[in-house]
């Protein structure tokens, strides 16, 4: 009797995970996959075919946006890495005690408000009549206000800002594990700072770098608000296309095809990144 109940309990405990996997991953993805191969031939009539993928390839602005989004995400990921690495190094190896936890909290701070509020904050600061221009004018550095918003660089900055934490955390974790005597040994053997960085610190931090990059890349690729709100007139993010297809065009089939393509390409890029850096997914994700 007891054992039966125990089994039931274990089953109940596993239920949320099972439901989560089936309801939120397997079902939607297979639905996405199936509907991406359905072509609309009339009102409420569908046929099987590759038409949606063809439509994607035949419309330059679809795949151009796609490439643009992927490139932007790669650049944003690299830039985030560039910004996060010194920060993480400082937190892991230089800062001690309260300063350390304070710096960590500072990285966390942007996440206490929603993404929308965060972006509105940037808009208040960067707009033509915004705070930054106000100060620059006050300081007589400029005579005419500059529009900082609606530029690709602004989008990039917003993306880096949003992603920073997701890069800093895995980097801090790996860098904290770095044995300081390795650095001393390198120093002792004649390696300057740059050599130590390139040949000891970075190889050591590689699992953290790769896992951070995967996370940031995925987040950026799937970003919607930052790209739309801070971006300019030509700025178009691929997720915006997908949203449009689903929401305003009612073209779920093309939207599915685009979503599926995004999934496939991002997975392929992650795989490629792992291959190029010689990392294993299970090692990177733990």
């Amino acid at each position, binding site marked *: 009797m007891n054992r039966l109940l125990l089994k039931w309990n274990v089953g109940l405990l596993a239920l949320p995970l099972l439901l989560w996997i089936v309801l939120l991953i397997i079902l939607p993805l297979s639905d996405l996959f199936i509907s991406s191969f359905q072509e609309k031939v009339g009102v409420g009539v569908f046929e099987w075919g590759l038409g949606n993928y063809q439509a994607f390839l035949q419309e330059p602005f679809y795949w151009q946006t796609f490439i643009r989004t992927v490139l932007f995400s790669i650049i944003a990921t690299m830039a985030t890495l560039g910004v996060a690495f010194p920060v993480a190094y400082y937190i892991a190896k230089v800062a001690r005690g309260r300063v350390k936890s304070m710096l960590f909290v500072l990285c966390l701070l942007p996440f206490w408000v929603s993404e929308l509020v965060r972006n509105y904050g940037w808009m208040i600061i960067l707009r033509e009549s915004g705070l930054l221009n106000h100060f620059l004018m006050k300081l007589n550095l400029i005579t005419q206000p500059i529009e900082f918003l609606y530029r690709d660089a602004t989008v990039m900055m917003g993306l880096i800002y949003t992603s920073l934490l997701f890069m800093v955390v895995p980097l801090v974790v790996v860098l904290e594990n770095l*044995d300081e005597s390795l650095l*001393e040994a390198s120093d002792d053997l004649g*390696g*300057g700072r740059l050599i130590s960085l390139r040949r000891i610190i970075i*190889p*050591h931090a*590689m699992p953290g770098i790769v896992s951070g990059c995967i996370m940031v890349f995925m987040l950026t690729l799937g970003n919607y608000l930052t790209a739309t709100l801070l971006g300019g007139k030509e700025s178009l993010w691929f997720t915006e296309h997908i949203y449009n297809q689903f929401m305003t065009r009612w073209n779920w089939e093309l939207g599915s095809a685009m979503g599926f393509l995004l999934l496939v390409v991002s997975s392929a890029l992650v795989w490629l990144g792992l291959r190029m850096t010689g990392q294993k997914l299970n090692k990177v994700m733990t």
Partner: protein
Amino acid sequence: MTFALECRSLSKRFGSFSAVSDVSFTISEGSFFSILGPSGCGKTTLLRMISGFCEPDKGDIVIHSRSMRGILPNARPVNMVFQQLALFPMMTVFENIAYGLRCRKVSKKKISFHVEEVLNRVGLAQSGSKKIDQLSGGQKQRVAIARCLVLEPKILLLDEPLGALDLKLREHMKIELKKLQTQLGTTFLYITHDQSEALVMSSHIAVMKEGRIEQIGTPQALYQSPKSSFVAQFVGDNNHWRGKIVQFCEPYVEVQTEEGWKLKALYSSSFQVGDRVDIFVRPEAMLVKSGEKKPNGWVNCFEGLVSSVVFNGGTRDLWVNVRGGNGSSFSKELKVTLPAQKGDGEACLPSGRAVEVGWDALSSHVLKVGVK
């Protein structure tokens, strides 16, 4: 004469704690010099000052007549084998050893020549392509040394590199290191808290205590004539009494210990009646006799009972519970080390057997208390 290394009145403080105070010594070229001391005695700080990872507050370090003041670690003609070895886990054995040469921008061809050569020297000729975690403890040790040797340092600094090894390997590596040093002729500066390591390998040893050097000398000198109680107790095993000189009776002095024993030692002119002294007797200097016949020539002779016997292969250690004689009621356990000869098995001196323990006056090493 130029020395490989000269330390001149080195001092280093961390806050109010004085890690190294006024340390001076010289190391001649090609020697295997050890700094021996318990943990916290300042030996690691001393080594880090020599390697350049920390700057002395006072004093100077001179390597081959060149002052090291203000010279960065990577520019000093010394290399260090770290306590945990600090091999680079992301590189192969070859890359580890080539690291220093690459930093010096040596050509690829030369690098591979030098690395192969040094790998040969440390007996790892075939292991260049191995990953660090594929090596045994002893092999890692040799890689760590090879990584330094390939740079042909004037002095090789070793920071307790055997600490992480298991006992058997440690014993083996002691001999290996000694052989390697003799073969290479490089000056080794070795840091350890293990007196047996120091004794086995070194040509000279400096014993450190609380930031100061207690005694410098050859292993033999340290063992046979320690200049302080600390050295006598730290280097090798010793039986120890504390007492007072009570009278001279040529050629001996007589010492009354705190337990009430009367011990004889050789007379020296520096002694005066009433001096407080420590007396040390090495276990292997003691002799044991059982049976009726009273041995000759033992000026110190006590009766006792064997309490336990430890067989060490080549030797036997006896613990003998000795009553102080002369009616003293205090008993003391003395350690006696005897060569294990054929035929005198356990049957000869089992525990519980009544024996006489004795030693000659020459073996009583007398040190005045509170005098260096």
